[in-house]
């Protein structure tokens, strides 16, 4: 394997990894705050791509506008799911909350099948993402550059929110000790709703980029990115945003390199994430970055 090809695969890996990371941040924020594996995260992502799809092809909005609308609608969906399904089981045993989350995931998938139909639909990709540049033998696909850039921007926004705003401070406080924060007079439910909104919006951004990368959407498309991002979050230490980024990049890069250098194992690609997860949990049961709180 020569250097240009390696660099090219590395770039692809970083691109995929940052996508995983972006979705994983949403997972990790929700987990960090209410200790709930939001199994429906991947399916929320799926719904967001349909919002964008309908905006572009049915309502003929400009693509960027329908992306913005889709992200806002998805944030709203996140709040509604929290209100309808998760808030009633908030003080129930952990297992009840986990089962509820699995139920919500299945509900979104099957409702998607009923409402949108099982037929895959082609997703729009703007022209500027379709270009390929060549630099000293390395083929650079413009989308592969844009994905990490957008992820970095959104990540910066998340950090601004968490560390430079009052509500961000409230989020970090809720993650540390929910009961105590309640006693301090902070409306915990509102903070959690906001977290769901932010997490879902990040999932939407990730989902729409995912749909542009693999330009086809269907109601079950959220399963794979959802699982991979979750694995990324756990690898990095769930609840920890830095860990999610680290885990996402690690997973994306190793996955791409594995497929590139050992093509005979390409069929096992979707199992690879879990094998890596199992190996890492064997040695570090709380993930690479450890720590069980947000921030």
């Amino acid at each position, binding site marked *: 394997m020569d250097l240009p090809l390696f660099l090219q695969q590395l770039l692809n890996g970083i691109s995929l990894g940052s996508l995983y990371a972006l979705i994983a941040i949403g997972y990790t924020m929700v987990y960090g705050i209410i200790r709930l594996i939001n199994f429906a995260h991947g399916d929320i992502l799926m719904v967001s791509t349909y919002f964008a799809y309908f905006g572009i092809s049915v309502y003929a909005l400009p693509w960027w506008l329908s992306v913005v609308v889709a992200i806002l609608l998805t944030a709203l969906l996140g709040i509604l799911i929290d209100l309808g399904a998760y808030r009633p089981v908030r003080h129930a045993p952990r297992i009840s909350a986990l089962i509820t989350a699995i139920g*919500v995931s299945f509900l979104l998938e099957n409702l998607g099948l009923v409402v949108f139909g099982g037929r895959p639909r082609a997703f729009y990709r703007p022209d500027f993402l379709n270009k390929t540049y060549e630099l000293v033998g390395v083929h650079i696909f413009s989308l592969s550059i844009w994905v990490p850039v957008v992820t970095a921007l959104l990540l910066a926004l998340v950090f601004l929110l968490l560390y430079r705003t009052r509500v961000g401070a409230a989020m970090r406080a809720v993650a540390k000790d929910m009961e105590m924060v309640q006693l301090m007079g902070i409306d915990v439910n509102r903070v959690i709703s906001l977290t769901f909104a932010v997490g879902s919006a990040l999932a939407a951004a990730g989902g729409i980029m995912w749909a542009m990368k693999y330009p086809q959407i269907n109601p079950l498309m959220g399963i794979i990115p959802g699982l991979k991002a979750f694995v990324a979050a*756990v690898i990095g230490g769930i609840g920890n945003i830095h860990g999610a980024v680290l885990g996402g990049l690690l997973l994306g890069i190793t996955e791409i390199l594995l497929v590139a250098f050992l093509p005979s194992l390409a069929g096992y690609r979707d*199992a690879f994430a879990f094998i890596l997860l199992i190996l890492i949990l064997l040695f570090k049961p709380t993930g690479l970055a450890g720590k069980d709180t947000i921030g």
Partner: protein
Amino acid sequence: MSDQHRREWIYKLCTYGALAGLFAFLLQVQNQADEYQIRILNVSAIFVTLAVSYNLINGVAGQFSLGPNAFMAVGAYTTALLTISPAEKELSFIIEPIIWPISVLHLPFLPSLLIGGVFAALLGFVMAFPVFRVRGDYLAIVTLGFGEVVRVVANNAQSITNGPLGLKGLPEYTNLWWSCGVAVFTVFCVTRLVKSSFGRAMQAIREDEVAAAAMGINVFRHKMLAFVVHAFFAGMAGGLMAHLITTISPTLFSFFLTFNLLVIIVIGGLGSMTGSIIAAVIITYAGEWLRAVEEPMAIGPLNIPGIPGMRMVVFSIMLILVMIFARQGLMGRREFSWEWFCGFLKIGKRRG
């Protein structure tokens, strides 16, 4: 003979009577019912086996596993590869030829089924080491991961599993006697295990792992035992399922199957074997009744078009509602007993 002794005798007789009743019922069904009804009864018996064994690990031992589909897949593939005749195997493996020892093996149904169960149990044994290093949510996700890994392997190990094409032409061995026989056997074994000191230790682990360990219970060994027993019966159920529908492919053993089982044990009540049995039968039948929802209907002048996929929507909503409003499920952790039953019917109770 003391009063207590006599009661136990009567309850034992009641159990045998109920088994005889089941036998008579099956005989009647076998002779009179149509193929569709027999099939649904078969499916519900297989789901009883699955739910009871799944409840052992999730409800009794309190280890939230999401990987029964992995064990079912292993059991189904192992059993199928043993019962399909070598000639048939050669015919279906078109893309890559089947590897040697499997290509010539050919066994009757019972040994194949047992070997299927044993292979699943072996997988459970191997899985236990990484799985029980973690707890709670992590355990759920690691077991789910194993399910996914098994499915991907089944998809790719073409010279053993025939890849995405799957195996077809399985002999149709599963009938009411097999499915109900295995179900009764499973219920017997699992309830005996739950009532034994092993079972009580498992329940202690469910309630408080640290305290259980402090009392001298070997936590890992008990978790492993529950897991391996669950795997064994899930593997047998997989074999039965395979020989009922006579074709298997990796897509059959996706997370979807686990979800179905989860709905059953949650609705029945996590930790109640009786609940699992009742819910397995109800959910299987409800799934069939709900097919009506998916068909076009005409209520008076109103024409409602068929909505395929509606069944799963209903099940998902049901699961969420049970979790919100009736977390205990049908039975909570209670079990059926003749004592309770007689009390319910007010038989043998001293009056006054």
